[in-house]
């Protein structure tokens, strides 16, 4: 795609990068087939290549963007399915982030939108405040219909069960001989929603010879604010984390158990551009990558419960971590079933289901239907946002894979499955073909 930036504009390195990205797009259109918003609307401006064109026009013109452009860019999930599909590998993630920064700096949203975004950007990265707000929100649920579509949808998303557990900085010693020393990103919103995930992660890592460090000064990864266009806030959060882990002593890895955060932390080098940030990015691993790397072999695997594993977009498209969770779940004894249309987003997408509830609800219902069609005993994924969104639309608990791996290797049954009756697994036959299969 050709661009026409002025010389003055091209003195801004951010626009130089955007220009390079835009020019790699040649409109093959593969991205449209896997873009959730395009598939649901068939509106070219709701497709990645349509949005790239809108971003080009917006950045070339400079100043305040058109409201229609903002609406089309706001409705992008940043699921990055387009990047997986793109034949020429357009770096869409950095372009849409740049566009969001431009909108944040040059566009005046209506008061409601501004207030809502400011509230989310302030509350979500602060787990104690978020937990408090969720308690208040639960009390306000009966009044949801009076609060308008967006606030009503936001209240509806508050899970019936939360298990906040906000970790302070500390060091968890390895069980037995210490073989690895890792920092764990304790996260922000996840801690307020579900402390079981960090608890299971820490038990699991310790059991595998890891000393687990919750570094003082580490907090929100910056992902939520980055995808809202608040680049300065995101950079502040990222700098704090880089400094915290740099000062935490020698580390074998920075472990992330929320894949949305993992995608951002791995990309700190791009966000901050300095050597420390690049080093931290390179050191970062999703917990499933790390566990598989150090070896996970529970002595007595669980019965082969049928687990539908949902690939979070940040995991499959952002980090390309696809096989590791499946391999670990199989090693734990589970039968892993793939969910049809796995390349599609569940509609969670950070704050998307709060800011774009209508599209998110369509995607959530679609994903829940696909998951239900696999007839699973347990639904598992690897990102707190997906867990919340899918549980809401599926009407049953969704667990994090670390909770299952912890259970399989000696930890407790995931609290979310307490009281859930699991079917007696069928005996697996690996050698005999199914009755109607071919003769081999």
């Amino acid at each position, binding site marked *: 795609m050709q661009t026409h930036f002025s010389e003055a504009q091209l003195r801004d390195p951010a626009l130089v990068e955007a220009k390079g990205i835009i020019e790699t797009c040649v409109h093959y259109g593969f991205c449209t087939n896997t873009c959730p918003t395009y598939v649901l609307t068939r509106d070219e401006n709701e497709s990645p290549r349509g949005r790239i064109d809108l971003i080009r026009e917006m950045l070339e013109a400079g100043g305040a963007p058109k409201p229609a452009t903002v609406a089309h860019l706001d409705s992008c999930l940043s699921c990055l399915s387009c990047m997986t599909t793109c034949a020429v590998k357009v770096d869409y993630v950095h372009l849409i982030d740049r566009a969001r920064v431009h909108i944040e700096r040059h566009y005046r949203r209506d008061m409601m939108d501004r207030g809502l975004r400011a509230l989310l950007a302030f509350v979500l990265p602060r787990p104690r405040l978020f937990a408090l707000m969720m308690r208040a929100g639960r009390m306000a649920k009966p009044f949801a219909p009076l609060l308008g579509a967006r606030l009503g949808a936001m209240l509806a998303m508050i899970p019936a069960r939360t298990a906040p557990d906000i970790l302070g900085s500390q060091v968890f010693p390895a069980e037995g001989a210490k073989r690895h020393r890792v920092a764990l990103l304790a996260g922000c919103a996840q801690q307020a929603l579900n402390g079981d995930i960090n608890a299971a992660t820490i038990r699991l890592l310790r059991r595998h010879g890891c000393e687990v460090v919750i570094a003082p000064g580490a907090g929100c990864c910056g992902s939520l604010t980055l995808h809202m266009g608040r680049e300065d806030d995101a950079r502040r959060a990222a700098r704090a984390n880089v400094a915290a882990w740099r000062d935490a002593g020698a580390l074998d890895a920075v472990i992330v158990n929320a894949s949305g955060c993992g995608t951002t932390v791995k990309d700190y080098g791009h966000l901050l551009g300095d050597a420390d940030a690049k080093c931290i990015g390179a050191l970062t691993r999703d917990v499933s990558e790390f566990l598989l790397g150090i070896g996970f072999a529970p002595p007595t695997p669980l019965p082969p419960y049928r687990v539908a594993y949902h690939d979070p977009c940040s995991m499959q498209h952002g980090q390309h971590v696809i096989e590791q969770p499946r391999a670990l779940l199989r090693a734990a004894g589970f039968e892993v079933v793939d969910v*049809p249309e796995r390349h599609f987003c569940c509609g969670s997408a950070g704050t998307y289901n709060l800011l774009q509830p209508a599209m998110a609800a369509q995607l959530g219902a679609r994903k829940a239907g696909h998951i239900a069609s696999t007839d699973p005993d347990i639904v598992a994924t690897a990102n707190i946002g997906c867990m919340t969104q899918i549980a809401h639309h599926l009407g049953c608990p969704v667990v994090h894979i670390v909770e299952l791996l912890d259970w399989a290797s000696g930890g407790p049954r995931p609290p979310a499955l307490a009281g859930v009756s699991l079917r007696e697994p069928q005996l697996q036959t690996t050698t005999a073909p199914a009755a109607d299969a071919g003769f081999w």
Partner: protein
Amino acid sequence: MTANFDAFFKDIEGKLGANAVNRAEETLVRYGENTMPGGDRRPAGVVYPKSTADVQAIVRSANAHRVPLYPVSTGNNIGLGSRSASTAGQVIVDLGRDMNRIVEINDRLAYAVVEPGVTYQAMHDELVRRGNHLMVDVTSGPPQGGMIGNALDKGAGYTPYFDHFGFACGMEVVLGNGEVLRTGDGSLDHDTLVNWHTSKYSFGPILDGLFTQSNYGIVTRMGIWLMPRPPAVQSFHFTFPDDDDLEEVIELCRPLKLSNFVPTLFRVANDLYLCASEGESPEAKSGKALSRDARIALRNKFGLGAWNISGAFYGASEAAIAPMIQRVRDHFCKSGKASYIDHNAAQAVPAFQVAINAFSGKPSLGELGLLKWRPGGGNIWFTPGTPMDGKIANEFQKLGRKIFEDHGLDYTVMNVCGPRFARGLHVITFNRQDEDECRRADACYRAMAAEVAKRGVFVGRAPLDYHDMHFAQTMPAFRQACSGIKQALDPNGIIAPGRYGIA
């Protein structure tokens, strides 16, 4: 009578709803885009049927208002036309948006019945969901490609079920006059059709072929046969060091296919076909074909040869397959030129993993990387064939390589080999934003088409820009027959006029 587009769109909105018509500026621009050297073809609008009855309504209205239609399923035939119509000003009938249901899967008789929007990925996902006992033959192209669109354009895969039209059985077609035709056993005038999707050849002429690479009707559903998924798939791969080794390779492949000892087709890819998937040309801006030194450096970088051969066996277990692979290995390695790469080692080579996925009925994206070999988004496929005779195949190789290089383009080809014939998938990637490169790509295609025709060889699937040219290469009686059939089935010529040259 001239076309009355406004009346047509108003009629469709009235009958199918406002959401069934799209004339937004950005839609018209994007649906007109393609990767050909000849430019885009802006349509007059896009309509979205939800059912066969909707398609009938569209066709009848188009007849009434003399509006030309251009049906697409998922529009993923990049390099052959994308979603672009034969000429500007036609109305795209986008079947894929709403007609994307898997109508039936018969697990016992191993077939599926699909609508035009059903993609390879969707079928694969559904088969996995149902227990993974069956697999669909996939292309190595886009996973979101449509099964019906590919079969009707005579697309193919690589497993024993590779021939997508050949393994289609029973169609439902809306003819140019708006009538619905059922082919094969579906032609029985009865409500219950037991063998529609199990028997291809029963009473009367086989009409199905009329709807391939043509414009006689709009296929709205089709039966596709599925293959039982084998417990084990083991691939084997060989590399040969020299360009002229193609002669030996073809001679080695032929007997293995004539006896069907090897159940898959052979993928015989040249160095650039596989290397191009993995990166961009280091000399894209030179205006010349890639230098021999650069080509050899790329081969070495990726551990590939001048020719790279892949095939696979199916069986009850790896152990059951191992002796067959050993026999193939002995056969290929007897001259001393082949290097063997086993299944496990090949899985670490992305270019071979594409082949393994295809043999395993798994849609994958790897081969799309070919399209970024040169910048600028130009891409056309030239698809002649060669008999499975080593000398002839190698002569074609020398001819093709020279023509590509004479036009400053990179000879990029994969021969997909059966027992008697190999389809040569020649990729021409070029910078569509560079006038000179566009001109050279166009000239290269035309020169290739002319030269192979002189030697008695025709093409298979053809890019949109060259439908008229290839149609003109056919004998007069063929052209007259095609025109006569068009007149009979679509007397007003409203379905895709000009597609594959048939007006």
